[in-house]
């Protein structure tokens, strides 16, 4: 009976009922408390499933944003040589210094230093207006709070305590190690993950390749950068630039 009612609710929610069927359904909703409760449950579950999916989509948007180098102008103002000339001179000196540095060294570790930046937390966003009490936070929430505070030692400790970690947790555990200058441990986590990951696949590949650079494993890094250079992802151009420098 309940199975039939669920099928009826599904058809109602999909707009598949005829006008008369819909009217009969509404009458039953008014008269039958069990059906009305079942209907409420299904509606909330539908909304909840939608939210879970949209949270996934939001993460994908944040991940895309994290992979973009922003070139948009950030403000207006009048141009003044008095202000800009000394700044331009400093920049020019820095560029020349950097050029000499790069000419002297395109060593893997130098490239690592140039391209590495800590990946932002897009897995468990910490909202500024969050009113969550400390005792309602999960281990994952706590780990990400430490990660956001750049307390990587503590983040590692909490990430490692999570039973059955998902790929997001493993990615950020590796990232915490790499940010802590422990590239060997990061690579040990990411190497198997790079094959299995779905949501974080390109991010894992990119940072694993950087970890290999840091460990002077140039050939291993190259294999991954070559794949990323043709991947059509946000890491494509940077991978090409690194390959060129290598």
């Amino acid at each position, binding site marked *: 009976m309940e199975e039939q009612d669920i099928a009826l609710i599904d058809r109602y929610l999909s707009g598949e009922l005829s006008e008369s069927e819909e009217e009969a359904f509404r009458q039953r909703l008014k008269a039958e408390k069990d059906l009305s409760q079942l209907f409420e449950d299904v509606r909330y579950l539908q909304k909840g499933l939608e939210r879970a999916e949209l949270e996934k989509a939001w993460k994908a948007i944040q991940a895309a944003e994290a992979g973009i180098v922003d070139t948009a102008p950030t403000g207006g103002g009048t141009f003044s040589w008095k202000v800009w000339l000394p700044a331009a001179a400093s920049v020019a000196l820095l560029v020349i210094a950097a050029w000499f540095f790069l000419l002297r060294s395109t060593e893997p570790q130098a490239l690592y230093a140039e391209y590495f930046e800590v990946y932002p937390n897009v897995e468990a966003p910490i*909202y500024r207006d969050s009113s969550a009490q400390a005792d309602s936070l999960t281990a994952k929430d706590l780990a990400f709070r430490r990660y956001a505070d750049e307390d990587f030692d503590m983040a590692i400790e909490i990430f490692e305590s999570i039973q059955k970690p998902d790929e997001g947790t493993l990615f950020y555990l590796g990232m915490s190690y790499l940010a802590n200058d422990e590239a060997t441990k990061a690579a040990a986590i990411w190497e198997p993950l790079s094959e299995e990951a779905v949501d974080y696949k390109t991010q894992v590949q990119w940072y694993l390749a950087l970890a290999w650079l840091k460990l002077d494993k140039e050939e291993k890094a190259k294999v991954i950068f070559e794949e990323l250079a043709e991947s059509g992802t946000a890491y494509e151009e940077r991978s090409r630039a690194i390959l060129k420098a290598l």
Partner: protein
Amino acid sequence: MDETLIASLKNGDMQALGELYSKYRQEFIAMIRAKYKMSNDDAMDIYQVATLRLYNNVVKGKMTMMYDSIKPYLFSIGLNVYKEMVREDMKIPLSSNPLEWVDDRGEGQEATDEALLKERLLEATKKAIEKLGDPCQSMLTRFYYFRASIRQLMEEFGYKNEATAKNKKYKCLQQLRELLQKEKIQMALA
């Protein structure tokens, strides 16, 4: 090309969503900042919410037919989000609570108590869904969000026939309802 993109989004392809986001981001930010005075961060917030709203609309088949391609549709959603933000005199970044902005916001908002209760129920639902796990979660998401038919579930999840798929979907829903009941009790006790 847009047909392929729309089909990918309808199928929940997150890589396609990321690519769409990157493709028009700079152009949208430049457009809206040229039109209205705002910071780069505010423009980016609006664009992110617009992309999320577009995704939801495409999945639900709500993409208006008057747009024959994604870009003008995305930009018009972005302008609407901006107008809604101005109308509600928003002072906090939209990105701090993006899911609230997924649906068009009407002139009037719900009564606070009712909205709070709904929010708590949805939070309980979220916890129940997290505990459900796969394949039930994927199956119910395909059915209730992506509007996959029982036949599609049968094919995607490898069931012998539609009756088996229908029965499995029913059992998954029952399992989720039981988890929801437990979460509701927890919520009442909290």
